[in-house]
């Protein structure tokens, strides 16, 4: 009932949910590609999944552009427009990191040494989990539901865990006793830092969502 009154709002709301679906797909492709190539050595599928990640990342960018255009066609009150766009732009940095990490493995021909597998796998797992929780938190925010603060706390704990893993990995990469080529050490370090950025960015966006939800409480 009265749906005709909310026509523009419905379009933008649907676009945001579509963006979140694309965000999830980019994340799934990233984690699958990572496991396939890094752990199972199946790099033909890796190429396909990396391309899929790239495709969904571009799709996410297009959706953001569309939301931006619709938003300034007088959807939402000006205060909320800016808040929602800042939130989406913050969120959209994560698919870029997924894409760049996979491209780094692909184009720099990185083969992760066995002694780094477990920690890198843990780092990717936890980073992907922070993204799952973040998408849930954004949905809570859009529906103005409870649970936003809880999501923020969970992401915060996972982000600290990721920082810890990142430090350990960098220490292992630069272990003087390891026989990794110094040039490769720098590349692995760059990859680890980049994967670590996923949870850092998720944490930043999660805190922003929390602030925005508090701002909307009267």
């Amino acid at each position, binding site marked *: 009932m009265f749906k005709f009154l909310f026509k523009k709002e419905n379009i933008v709301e649907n676009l945001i949910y579509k963006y979140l679906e694309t965000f999830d797909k980019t994340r799934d492709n990233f984690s699958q590609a990572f496991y396939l190539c890094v752990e199972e050595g199946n790099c033909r599928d890796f190429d396909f999944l990396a391309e899929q990640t790239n495709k969904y990342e571009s799709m996410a960018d297009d959706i953001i552009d569309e939301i931006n255009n619709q938003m300034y066609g007088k959807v939402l009150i*000006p205060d909320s427009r800016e808040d929602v766009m800042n939130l989406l732009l913050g969120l959209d940095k994560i698919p870029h990191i997924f894409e760049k990490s996979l491209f780094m493995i692909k184009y720099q021909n990185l083969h992760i040494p066995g002694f780094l597998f477990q920690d890198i796998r843990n780092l990717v797992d936890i980073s992907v989990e922070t993204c799952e929780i973040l998408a849930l938190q954004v949905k809570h925010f859009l529906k103005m539901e409870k649970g936003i603060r809880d999501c923020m706390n969970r992401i915060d704990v996972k982000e600290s865990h990721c920082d810890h893993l990142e430090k350990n990995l960098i220490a292992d990469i630069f272990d003087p006793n390891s026989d990794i080529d110094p040039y490769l050490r720098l590349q692995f370090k760059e990859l680890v830092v980049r994967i670590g950025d996923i949870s850092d960015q998720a944490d930043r966006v999660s805190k922003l969502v929390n602030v925005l939800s508090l701002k909307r409480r*009267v």
Partner: protein
Amino acid sequence: MFSLLGGVFLGWSLGANDASNIFGTAVSSKMVKFGTAAVLASVFVVIGAVMSGSAGIETLKGLTSFDISEAVIASVAAAISVSAMTVFSLPVSTSQSVVGAIIGIGIINGQVNTAGLGKVVACWVGTPVGGAVICFVLYKVIAFFYNRSGVTLFRSDMLLRACLILSGSYGAYALGANNVANVSAVFVGADMLNVFQASLLGGVSIALGILTFSRPVMETVGKRLVRLDPFSALMVSLSLGATIHLYTMIGVPVSSSQAVIGAVLGIGIVKGVKTVSVATLKSIFAAWVLSPLVACGVSVLLIFISRLQYLPPVQ
């Protein structure tokens, strides 16, 4: 008919100034287009003036009784007082200026209705206080339900926008009903117009002011209040309408500017007393005292001048 122009001028300046109190926040924050706000405000001002403006007209008319020239002088004195206050950047109260002008003429004529004056002055004090109390209560009650309503972000914003349009229209209705007396009550007192004609003339002249010259003031007032979040802006707008409507039922024209300032103070009380500006309070107090005094002085002066007679020198 020419003598009615003073009233039309006063109505026009009132419309240009006071529409900002009703739709200022909504227009300056681009939640409502100026054209939409101006048309809605004009329509509802006329409806309010015609449907509920008679009580205020009866009260002001009862303060004293005028002939035509005195009625015109009262309007012009009030308009001069409003303009002078605007030049000195003081908050303007058209209602107080009109009453001050009427009192000035009443003093010269030796016929001031002190009982009616007491009622009016008591309501002046009560306007910002009433605005603050109504806003505080509305904020607390509506916020309780709003926080538990479960509406989504998009629905909530749309509802907020719709409510701002509705509360602005209600405010315009209340403004027309309440302030039309300032514009045309003196002409009823002078037996130039009946109550319906005075309401219509007053309503239309206020609407003319809104349609032609309210945009700059509306944008300025809105920007001054832009620190208010949208929900608080809605509460201020709703409280303004309710406060003015309340005084319309009592039959006393009051200042919409003071009702708005009272409502903003109400928000200040909800969000922490430290947000209330002492400087703002001082300027409100100065305007309370100065608006009627200046209008009273100007009307005394104009009446005095109008009664001067040329006496040829004795040969």
